[in-house]
């Protein structure tokens, strides 16, 4: 699909030839994830996480469809259908439910690593801008799906999570409150909200699957990026996806699934919140209300605004929280450096790791109790998050002198690290090629 040396599909049996002539599905699969897709030969393990995200999406869809067969979407029945029926009475129900709960967390873990891989190696840069943006669309859909799924057990955290998150919309002037009431189908989360969340929670994963197909399609036009960020130049730079990367993805998936199984079996509630084992009570808010861990950094940004400044603090918090993700859509144009890989960008690299630390701090603050120190820490970290993308990144890409790039992927692989910091002559031509690419 992407390179002239990509092998075309050759049917091995008369039946496959018959099928290929009528419906070239085997040809599509062969070109997408088979021997017909040439991949840079120097991918490191950070390139395994896209496939892993696909695996966890599949696990979530399969376990979710089965759980939906036993779940009651009623305010009176939801809590018991999860905690009594599924967790105790349904055969293997406890396993499916814990697999679904922790599958969501692992889906986010591998997705976050996948996103930070893209940030470090400049995977969002031309010609992969749409790959990046479709990825962000998937991420937003994942957040919506995860939120609505968390409401379904109708425990205390479910209920108050629904109340607080739909409350975001009431921050907007004039239309805010009517919009919130319209979204909930009532004045507080109730039967109407629960039923529509269930319907959408079932629908959205399939929308995600569709956007994943677009994401992969867009990726396969230029082909996968790689740790040097240097474009593929010849067949020597690539390996066929199958069997090389199917094997590498395969064993690594087994390793990650082992970690997933360990958590699911031995610490199934570690990533959840105990208050969600209390049935929803619309008259009492839990003392310490927090979303699931994967939303903590955004929750910290939301809580960072405590004083009114032109607009109400509440609206600032909501705008900043949505803005923190929306600005990532503009990243390909914010970071103008022609060098993709952070490995060749000494200044960028330092700020990248600062950003990682910053997001971890935001995550800590978002999950911690509110006190003066945590609020101040969260405000500093939230400010730095925006500073990184809006100020530091454009400045770094304008003033940084990148390290010399290797001439080609195969050269960087076959001659080792020494050749990567090659003499001035070869490095000049390499950089020119990158600019041209």
């Amino acid at each position, binding site marked *: 699909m992407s390179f002239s040396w990509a092998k075309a599909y050759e049917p091995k049996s008369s039946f496959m030839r018959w099928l290929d002539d009528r419906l070239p599905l085997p040809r599509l699969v062969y070109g997408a994830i088979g021997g017909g897709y040439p991949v840079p030969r120097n991918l490191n393990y950070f390139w395994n996480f896209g496939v892993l995200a696909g695996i966890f999406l599949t696990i979530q869809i399969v376990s979710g469809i089965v759980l939906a067969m036993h779940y009651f979407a009623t305010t009176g029945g939801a809590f018991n259908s999860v905690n009594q029926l599924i967790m105790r009475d349904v055969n293997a129900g406890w396993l499916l439910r814990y697999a679904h709960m922790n599958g969501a967390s692992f889906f986010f873990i591998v997705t976050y690593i996948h996103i930070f891989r893209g940030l470090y190696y400049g995977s969002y840069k031309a010609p992969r801008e749409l790959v990046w943006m479709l990825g962000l669309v998937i991420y937003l859909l994942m957040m919506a799906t995860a939120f609505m799924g968390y409401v379904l057990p109708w425990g205390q955290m479910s209920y108050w999570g629904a109340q607080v998150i739909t409350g975001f919309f009431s921050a907007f002037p004039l239309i805010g409150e009517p919009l919130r009431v319209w979204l909930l189908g009532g*004045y507080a989360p109730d039967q109407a909200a629960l039923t529509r969340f269930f319907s959408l929670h079932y629908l959205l994963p399939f929308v995600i699957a569709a956007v994943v197909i677009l994401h992969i399609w867009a990726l396969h036009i230029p082909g996968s990026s790689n740790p040097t960020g240097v474009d593929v130049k010849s067949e020597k730079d690539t390996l066929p996806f199958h069997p090389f990367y199917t094997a590498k993805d395969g064993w690594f998936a087994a390793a990650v699934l082992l970690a997933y199984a360990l958590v699911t079996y031995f610490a199934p509630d570690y990533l959840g919140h105990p208050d969600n084992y209390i049935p929803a009570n619309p008259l009492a808010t839990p003392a310490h209300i927090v979303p699931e861990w994967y939303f903590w950094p955004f929750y910290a940004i939301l*809580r960072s*605004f405590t004083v009114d400044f032109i607009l109400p603090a509440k609206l600032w918090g909501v705008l900043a929280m949505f803005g923190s993700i929306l600005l990532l859509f503009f990243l390909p144009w914010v970071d103008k450096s022609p060098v993709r890989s952070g490995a060749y960008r000494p200044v960028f690299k330092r700020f990248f790791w600062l950003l990682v630390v910053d997001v971890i701090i935001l995550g800590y603050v978002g999950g911690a109790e509110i006190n003066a120190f945590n609020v101040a820490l969260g405000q500093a970290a939230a400010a730095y998050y925006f500073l990184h993308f809006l100020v530091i990144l454009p400045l770094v890409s304008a003033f940084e002198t990148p390290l010399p790039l290797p001439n080609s992927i195969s050269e960087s692989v076959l001659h080792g690290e020494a050749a990567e910091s090659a003499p001035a002559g070869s490095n000049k031509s390499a950089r020119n090629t990158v600019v041209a690419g």
Partner: protein
Amino acid sequence: MATKAQSAEVNDTQAASDGVRRRDFLNVAAVSFAGVGGVAALAPLLVQMAPSADVLALSTTEIDVSKIQPGQGIKTTWRKQPVFVRNLTPKEIQQANAVPMSDLRDPESLAQRTKPGKANWLITLGVCTHLGCVPLGIGEGENRGPYGGYFCPCHGSAYDTAARIRQGPAPKNLMVPEYKFTGPTTVQIG
């Protein structure tokens, strides 16, 4: 028929010189009409999301306040939302009236937030105007926060004895629902 077809042809050629043929008009009209129909078909898909009749039917609640002593309060529900009914003590009323309007984020006097002659009956929604948590302070022994009214544990908003926002991220005072005293000790909310 022939003449009709001929005249149509003539019309078409005349129109063609203006750049718009009858066929173009028909196409635009047909697609526009289908577009209007398509948009109209969205209406039920949108309005079905709004509160249904059974939810709206819960829009009045009657409560008996005779058993609430000064300094006490009760929590009830209206439209599935918590409502705080509090019988303020003279000291709490005095505290609320002593606050200058310029100190308030959402300036309202206690008199504006209660009924004439019933300044001790403070009836508000128990829904924090930040993100909708239920503030503490209506039950006995609960944390009433630094201003002696209500305190929201979610994000730290503090309300005073007239349930006005004084500190924290919430933008507005606790909402006073529409209500009236239907008798000396009975209140109808909604």
